């Protein structure tokens, strides 16, 4: 199993904050690398407001997208991960080192706001992307340590 190094995230100045510059598109782009996103991808605020969120419009490859910029729930952050840079400094050949060693990831940037885009529908609370946040509450409940009092309450409930 690989490791994820989150240490850089603790220092606000060492990594870029990409809040509101992270977009989740309803498509797969078979390309990895830098691109002039802001030059070509130009979201505009639209007139429509849904569930208190102002929707946005943008076009990508000739298709109209409708999106919303959302804040990540408090207590959570978004991170952009990349292969740890010290990997190349080892002087090993890239291809072999990647396959033989356990991958090591590190935080390259963080964000607390992001925009997700729908193709055929206006953003709403029913979108899978927003619904996936439901997990946060459940995870919290599941992982909360069980106290003696909890156990007592449950056992009493069982008798009654």
């Amino acid at each position, binding site marked *: 199993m690989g490791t994820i190094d989150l240490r850089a995230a603790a220092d606000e100045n060492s990594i870029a904050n990409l809040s509101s510059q992270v977009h989740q598109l309803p498509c797969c782009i078979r390309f990895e690398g830098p691109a002039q996103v802001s030059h070509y991808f*130009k979201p505009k605020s639209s007139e429509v407001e849904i569930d208190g969120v102002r929707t946005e419009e943008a076009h990508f490859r000739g298709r109209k997208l409708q999106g919303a910029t959302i804040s990540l729930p408090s207590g959570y952050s978004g991170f952009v991960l990349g292969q740890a840079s010290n990997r190349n400094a080892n002087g090993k050949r890239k291809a072999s080192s990647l396959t033989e060693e356990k991958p090591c990831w590190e935080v390259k940037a963080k964000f607390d706001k992001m925009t997700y885009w729908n*193709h055929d529908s206006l953003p709403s609370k029913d979108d899978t992307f927003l619904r996936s946040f439901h997990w946060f509450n459940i995870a919290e409940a599941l992982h909360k340590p069980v106290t003696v009092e909890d156990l007592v309450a449950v056992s009493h409930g069982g008798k009654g």
Partner: protein
Amino acid sequence: MEFTPEWASQPCLMGIDEAGRGPVLGPMVYGCLYCPISYQSSLASLHFADSKTLKEEKREELYESLKLDKSLGWAVDVIGPRELSAKMLAKLVLDMGVFLTEAYLDTVGDPEKYRIKLSARFPSIKFVVSKKADSLYPVVSGASIVAKVTRDRAVREWLVEETGEDINRKFGSGYPGDPETKAWLEQHKHSVFGFPSLVRFSWGTCTAHLKGEVEVTWESDEADESGNGNSNKRQSKLSRFGFTTCESRSEEIESSGKGRCKFFQARKIQQITQF
């Protein structure tokens, strides 16, 4: 066009026409013009002609004068090429409370088939679908002016609003056969983004131009193709980035929550065990 005219309760006729079906640049615009049938004779005296035969200044002039004419109503719809808009305009005008009894429009397809389709949708309207309707019926000529002027203005506005400093404005007629248009497309294509938003991507010519560019597959297209399709057309998998899920056949399972409890499936949450 926001308010319903006083004469709307009289029997009315409407013409519908579109602009921009041919060019690969700019939106396609549907325009409609409607008026009481009793006004039809005066309509002929307004010198509306097929917008293609008119010079730009003349079109603009006629457009401004028809906007001021209290006996005429008009509406436009700027659309993507995949939508069918004659229906939308007819519905819009009916919803405004206009007593539409006749509608005239042009078609590139089979006029009779189109007429039957529209009549089925709007039984209270008599449809006249004909080739060259824009030169045969003044009400359609008027609609063609509304559509063409709106389209030209949209293209001009796009140039003002959206062009980056390095976008050259000489794109010719916008028709795919025009060498200037072709050169412009070639010059402004980007391997990831394709063309600037002025370009109508669904146009066949553009598809040809984009061959060899970065492949983009859309979730909505995959939903259209029922069945399991081929896996390389699907949403990017985390495994591509070195993440694997706990399922043994990880290639088959995307970040879809497949094979998990309904709660996770509905939210497309997948568990990651290797990274």
